[in-house]
């Protein structure tokens, strides 16, 4: 999602920036895996290393997928790797859309971009469910329904994008960065801190991080309210509602 905001932030006069945004969106899963894979260098998380991911995707995008497209004419029906499938099912259609965008007159960027991003999500879902079993006789396989609804969503989102081309409508709205950034930071901090640091520390710190998201915040007031709220939560959740939660940091509990 985050990368879609980049291109949406600038109001577009011509289509170049929209097309560029779609192009980035088309590579978003690959870029995401690459960033994710950097963690494996430090031993965090699981998955391929950055080099393997880069080589895998690059070869899939530049060689594997075109090969598969042309290979299918030759009747070769060998099993495609998931990287190639991603390139084929997700990136290429979006590349095509990005190129087409350059030649379109967009009447409502709100609808057009909305439709295209939804289409990207649908294509991604189609790819994600491509390894699941389909119909077996009369019984649905695991993959039947996701593919059915994925296909339906591609059609619907194409329809939405089309309305963006045919009817006048609002253009892209302004996105701000401060609110989303600090609210997200606060949520992520809470998630990471609740287990090791306990409710009191994480709730108080998250409150202050979230408060940073607004330029109206007055700090003394925020700290007082944050402390009261934390105290309230520390009584309310474990004692009145009986939810088992760590209260204090783990290193203090030993």
């Amino acid at each position, binding site marked *: 999602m985050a990368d879609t905001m980049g291109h949406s932030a600038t109001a577009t006069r011509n289509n170049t920036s929209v097309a560029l945004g779609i192009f980035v969106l088309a590579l978003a899963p690959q870029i995401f895996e690459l960033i994710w894979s950097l963690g494996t260098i430090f031993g965090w998380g699981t998955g391929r290393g950055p080099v393997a991911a880069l080589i895998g995707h690059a070869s899939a995008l530049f060689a594997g997928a075109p090969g598969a497209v042309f290979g299918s004419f030759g009747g070769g029906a060998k099993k495609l790797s998931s990287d190639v499938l991603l390139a084929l099912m997700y990136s290429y259609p979006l590349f095509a859309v990005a190129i087409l965008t350059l030649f379109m007159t967009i009447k409502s960027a709100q609808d057009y971009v909305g439709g295209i991003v939804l289409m990207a999500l649908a294509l991604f879902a189609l790819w994600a469910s491509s390894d699941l079993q389909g119909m077996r006789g009369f019984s649905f396989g695991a993959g039947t329904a996701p593919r059915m609804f994925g296909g339906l969503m591609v059609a619907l989102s194409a329809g939405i994008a089309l309305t963006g081309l045919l009817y006048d409508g609002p253009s892209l709205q302004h996105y701000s960065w401060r609110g989303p950034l600090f609210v997200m930071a606060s949520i992520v901090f809470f998630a990471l801190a609740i287990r090791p640091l306990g409710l009191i*520390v994480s709730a*108080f*710190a998250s409150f202050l*991080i979230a408060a940073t998201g607004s330029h109206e915040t007055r700090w003394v007031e925020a700290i007082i309210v*944050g402390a009261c709220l934390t105290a309230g939560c520390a009584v309310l959740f474990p004692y009145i509602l009986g939810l*088992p939660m760590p209260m204090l940091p783990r290193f*203090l509990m030993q």
Partner: protein
Amino acid sequence: MNTIRMLAGACVAAAASLCAFVAPAQAQTYPTRSITMIVPFAAGGPTDVISRIVTGHMAQTLGQSIIIENVVGAGGTTATSRAARAANDGHTLITGHMGTHAASVPLYPKLAYHPEKDFEPIALLAGTPILILARKDFPPKDLKEFVAYVKANAEKVNAAHAGVGSVSHVSCELLHSILDIKPVGVPFNGTGPAMNALVGGQVDYMCDQIVNAVPQINAGTIKAYAIATPARNPSLPNVPTTTEAGLPAFQAQAWNAIFAPKGTSPAILATLNAAAVKALDDENVKKRLLDLGSVIPAPAERTPEALAALVKAEVAKWSAVLKPAT
């Protein structure tokens, strides 16, 4: 800049105020603080109820409270993976059952733990017998007729179960492998909806734990063909055992047992086993377990060694039954 400084200041203040709360650590014999018992299923289910009854008594023996934490997900394997990784100081335990510590091995190829290698067995708590149930107007009258009918109509009959990996699913798979049939299994989201469908006559039969079925059988909304244990159950004295009814090969019980993470010290394991055994000998605990239709293990079955043997046997048994199905 100002903001960051404020934040940092606030954090220091918070940390300082926290230190006031901290009690000095005490050096004591096990258990030094409350014990967390992970139950891999929702509160109120058979495993949860059995855990609560037994741990309630164990807590008195151990002199520390035992907190039940229900962690649900992926047929109980989420909770079991977590228990396997928990600190092995005896303060985190898990009530495992037939699904999490046996049937999960063939069902989940990417299982993050192994029931035998990652856990120390403590004690078997109780077994819940499994029944063969059918909608009340299902043609066969007894188990023999049922076997013949299901074999003859394997293409037509529908067997309900409460989801992949549930007790009702794996035990019916066992029945099907014994009868060498593959009828259509209709999955439901839990025992409640499956029972609803059986009472409503939407499906033909299912295998389920005794707890849920007794009142329905007594009211005549469904019928039971046999109970898959060696002896009849006091809560259903009229239901024959599978041996009596002519299908001795079908034996299944949803057993529940306490495990600790691998490497827990033998002294702690012995303390816990003794507490569990004492609980099972308590009249009140016994009565409440029997009310549920549970089977209380005989003294010889309550040792960690017996439990280890049971897990080993059960893993082998379910691996043989469930492998060919997938």
